[in-house]
């Protein structure tokens, strides 16, 4: 009974979305207030029914109702509770419903938040959001319905269970975090479309979406970082980023969104770059949908792809519709979008932002190019040429370094124009620090882009500390405050600025971590009890090989002692080889899995993978990687989140 209720709720939401769009559209023509109120309530109704159907599916997952195909496919009776919850986004139809669920949460918040605000903008905002909801409702109602019953002639006693790779807490929270980011950009996009429809593209819409954009950006950033963290902890190839099409799909909107976050500051302060901002948010939202297309279409082979499905073309059509409609709308409003303000000088904050934007967009294009290169080369040259990480690294390392440099330069430039004296005054200390660092790093023996990256990191940190010092000393002089009080007051007075600087510090940490990749070492070898082998100056000795049976898997555990080149004890590593579903009589359905063990310090990670075991001879096959500075990436991630939170924290007044 209840499963049908879920499907019916989805049907009702579909109906409500059409009605809501019609009501609000008529309202924009005849301005009958009652129609607006009805449309608004209908829009809340869409969300209500989406919530209802999502909760019904969640309930079915929890009670393991295998009459529903989705429940049987992604859970089993033994699946732990938390992964029954996360199974909602483990498969295709469920994840589309989940997307819709988040969109509905955002739509509800937007509607409720703006009941007495932005009357001019709201009708088109709600229409735009309802249209996006309608798209996902079409998918979940008619193309891939999560409430489909299991094949009628089968009784399923137990479900498939969730892939063991997905049974990881990070994996349970990584997709929803990314989704919150992807979906979050629907709201700024809806406001942008509404501003275009209303012919008011000045700064009003920008002010109403700044926080939304920052929230979406925070989720997208954390989603990407969590994804990297999960890949590093679980997948066992020793890295956190592989330039996989689906990773790129999340990185591209991140790049344009980051550009947008910077350039709206100029529109807010100077009313410039209207066209540019409009284009950026449209692009960001389109890339979010395009990302879903890449994941779902099967066009690209990737660790993330689900089986090729009929969804590809539908998503592609949606992407093209968004692009065509939005950009034609921009073209129709080109006279309103023109701004009278002009750039005055190259050495101005505006121009700094402009170039940072340009570099972000160019990087996005480079990633886009690489991602679609196989498709492009197949159409043009007839052979499908796949590109790997070295290609992306070669293109993006220089672009990334330019961005890093701009991170340092931008904040030191003044609005409109920076005088020569203040240029010299502001840049002397940071440039000197960067140069001294470069000499030291060269002396240590680093070369090439490693030196550039490390010295630029020092340069950026020096500029940020100059900014903090300047602000603090101004306050201590003026108000006679203590340093900590001044710091606190300064940050809380101007949260978005100093929050932004803290985010920059996080980015510098991440760059340091990325640079460490240049020094990675790896080796594969076999060991019997008591034997040892060497990697990067460390000695690895197999002390013991033990076996154990746990509720849903069987495991072999190696006990490996690690000592450094002076023979001093470092740690013990316990990587495991596991067989999931080991009781399944069908050997093909048992799934082997390597559970890693990582010894992590600020300096380097020692990463161990138990590739295979030879039971008869007691031989274990181990892969060891020594990855310097990886931890800096995660620390940078934390700093980035803290900085964004500071920028987002609401003011008291």
């Amino acid at each position, binding site marked *: 009974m209840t499963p049908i209720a879920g499907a019916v709720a989805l049907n009702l939401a579909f109906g409500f979305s059409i009605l809501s769009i019609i009501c609000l559209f008529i309202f924009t023509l005849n301005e009958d207030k009652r129609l607006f109120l009805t449309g608004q309530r209908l829009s809340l109704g869409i969300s209500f029914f989406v919530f209802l159907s999502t909760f019904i599916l969640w309930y079915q997952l929890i009670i393991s109702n295998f009459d529903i195909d989705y429940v049987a496919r992604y859970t089993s009776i033994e699946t732990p509770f938390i992964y029954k919850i996360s199974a909602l986004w483990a498969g295709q139809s469920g994840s589309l419903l989940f997307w819709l669920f988040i969109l509905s949460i955002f739509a509800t918040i937007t509607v409720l938040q703006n009941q007495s605000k932005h009357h001019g903008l709201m009708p088109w905002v709600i229409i735009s959001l309802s249209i996006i909801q309608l798209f996902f409702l079409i998918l979940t109602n008619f193309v891939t319905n999560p409430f489909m019953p299991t094949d009628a002639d089968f009784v399923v006693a137990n479900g498939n269970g969730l892939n063991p790779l997905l049974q990881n807490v990070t994996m349970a929270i990584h997709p929803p975090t990314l989704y919150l980011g992807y979906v979050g950009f629907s709201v700024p996009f809806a406001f942008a479309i509404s501003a275009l429809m209303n012919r008011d593209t000045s700064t009003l819409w920008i002010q109403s979406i700044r926080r939304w954009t920052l929230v979406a950006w925070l989720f997208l950033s954390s989603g990407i970082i969590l994804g990297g963290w999960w890949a590093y902890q679980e997948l066992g190839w020793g890295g956190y980023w592989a330039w996989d099409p689906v990773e790129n799909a999340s990185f591209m909107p991140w790049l344009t969104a980051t550009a947008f976050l910077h350039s709206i500051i100029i529109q807010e302060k100077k009313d410039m770059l209207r066209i540019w901002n409009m284009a950026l948010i449209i692009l960001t939202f389109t890339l979010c949908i395009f990302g879903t297309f890449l994941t779902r279409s099967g066009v690209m082979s990737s660790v993330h792809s689900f089986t090729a499905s009929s969804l590809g073309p539908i998503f592609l059509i949606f992407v093209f519709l968004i692009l065509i409609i939005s950009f034609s709308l921009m073209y129709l409003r080109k006279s309103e979008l023109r701004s009278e303000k002009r750039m005055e000088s190259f050495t101005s904050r505006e121009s700094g932002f402009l170039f940072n934007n340009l570099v972000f967009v160019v990087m996005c294009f480079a990633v886009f190019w690489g991602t679609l290169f196989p498709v492009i080369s197949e159409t043009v040259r007839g052979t499908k040429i796949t590109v790997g990480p070295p*290609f992306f690294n070669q293109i993006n390392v220089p672009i990334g370094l330019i961005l890093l440099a701009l991170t340092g330069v931008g904040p030191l430039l003044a609005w409109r124009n920076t005088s020569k004296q203040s240029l010299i005054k502001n840049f002397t200390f940071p440039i000197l620090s960067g140069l001294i660092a470069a000499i030291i790093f060269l002396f240590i023996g680093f070369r090439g882009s490693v030196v550039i990256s490390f010295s630029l990191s020092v340069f950026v940190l020096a500029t940020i500390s100059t900014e903090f010092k300047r602000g603090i000393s101004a306050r201590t002089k003026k108000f006679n405050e203590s340093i900590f009080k001044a710091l606190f007051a300064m940050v809380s007075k101007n949260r978005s600025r100093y929050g932004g600087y803290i985010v920059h510090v996080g980015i510098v940490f991440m760059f340091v971590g990325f640079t460490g990749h240049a020094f990675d070492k790896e080796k594969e070898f076999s060991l019997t009890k008591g034997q040892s082998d060497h990697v990067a100056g460390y000695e690895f000795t197999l002390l013991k090989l033990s076996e154990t049976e746990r509720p849903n898997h069987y495991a072999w555990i190696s006990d490996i002692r690690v000592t450094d080149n002076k023979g001093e004890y470092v740690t013990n590593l316990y990587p495991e080889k596991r067989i999931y579903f080991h009781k399944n009589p069908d050997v093909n359905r048992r*799934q082997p899995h390597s559970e890693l063990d990582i010894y992590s310090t600020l300096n380097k990670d020692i990463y161990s993978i138990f590739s295979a075991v030879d039971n008869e001879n007691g031989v274990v096959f181990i892969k060891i990687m020594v990855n310097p500075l990886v931890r800096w990436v995660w620390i940078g991630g934390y700093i980035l989140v803290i900085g964004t939170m500071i920028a987002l924290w609401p003011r008291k007044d």
Partner: protein
Amino acid sequence: MNSNKKFTIMIAGVITVVIFWIGWVSSNPKDEKAMASFISVEKLLNDKMKKRTKLGGLVKDGSIIISETNYLDCSFVLKEGAAELKVKYDRSRPDLFKDGAEVIITGQYLDGTFYADELQTKCASRYEGDLRDESSYKLTEIET
């Protein structure tokens, strides 16, 4: 020249440089592992392609031979349609590598043997696959 024009030229300049850069890297990648053509086994055997290629196919049943002295050394036969190719691979193998597995390999062809340095198994069907295992049974079977 007014400042707007200067900016336009500057922006156009940056874009041109980057497009050239991307184009240059696309045609002369520094690392030979940056690119590989995805071709069929048949085409590889016909053309005796020496450059880096990516192939897809199935592991022929019973063809996996693991060296007795070094567990990491392994050879197998890749089947794609009627075409068969001997493959050597000496790195750790993915968990799902076995007879009949669908694999994608990357490497170079030399004198009748393909030396792969990347091996990925494809197993998308496992969890999207059907439910007809021992825990499910056909209704008609109990009825009759």
